[in-house]
């Protein structure tokens, strides 16, 4: 029954929205600690996530090229959703200490408020983009199921 989502981009968008959500938490923690001595900036590993994303997309495409129908089985569920397959390890969604473009100040804090607000804005825009696309896809599935537009 869950394989009806495999032909859509819903599993991909789910992962992106989840990542954006976790990242928002990390960035708000950075802003809250803007004056804390000895605090170092934390973030989610973006490069690792992008890499996992590209791998999952390429994996999906290669399976489609081999003639496996998009609605067959849950191979997409394996790499992108559901049972959280090998390509999206749980570490990708956990905050770690990240590098900062700013220098370290006297109180051993590497703050840059503009950088944090910029990343937060980009993150939130990405999340609303992904969620809107996802809800459109859900609407399409609903229209097909209800036989009613």
């Amino acid at each position: 029954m869950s394989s009806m989502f495999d032909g859509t981009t819903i599993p991909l968008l789910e992962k992106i929205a989840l990542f954006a959500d976790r990242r928002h938490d990390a960035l708000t923690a950075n802003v809250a600690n803007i004056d804390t001595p000895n605090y170092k900036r934390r973030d989610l590993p973006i490069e690792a996530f992008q890499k996992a994303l590209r791998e999952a997309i390429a994996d999906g495409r290669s399976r489609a090229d081999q003639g496996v129908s998009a609605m067959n089985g849950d191979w997409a569920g394996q790499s992108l959703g559901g049972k959280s397959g090998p390509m999206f390890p749980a570490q990708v969604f956990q905050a770690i200490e990240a590098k900062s473009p700013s220098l370290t100040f006297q109180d051993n804090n590497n703050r840059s408020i503009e950088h944090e607000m910029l990343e937060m804005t980009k993150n939130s825009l990405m999340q609303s983009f992904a969620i809107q696309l996802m809800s459109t896809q859900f609407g399409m599935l609903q229209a097909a199921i209800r036989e009613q537009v």
Partner: protein
Amino acid sequence: MLSALDVSASALIAQRQRMNAIADNLANLNTTRDADGKPSPFQRRFVTFAAAESGNSTDAPAGVTYQVAVDTSTPPRRVFEPGHPDADKDGYVSYPNIDMMTEFVNAVEASRAYQANLVAIDITKQGFTQSLKILA
């Protein structure tokens, strides 16, 4: 996709550094000793901007980078104060080569540029959220 935000943010960071340099100059308007306590007038700091190199393609806009530089060419202000502990053998004290009016004008300019870039960020955000109406 959202490179316009990166560009504006680089400008915000650069203008803030400029304000930091100006605040530094104004705080040290009359500083005659350096951090080690030796009589050496504070040298004026200023920030130079340069267009940033884009990583991928050569004509994609990439924002601005800044360099903090020390103004070593302007000579220090020499004032005749024989009783001053930092006076040299002729009785002159070397004060920093900082002009308050210049610093104020630069501060106003930096603040205006900061505001302008904030508005640019706002417009970019609005454009993005407006485009979501395509799906409505």
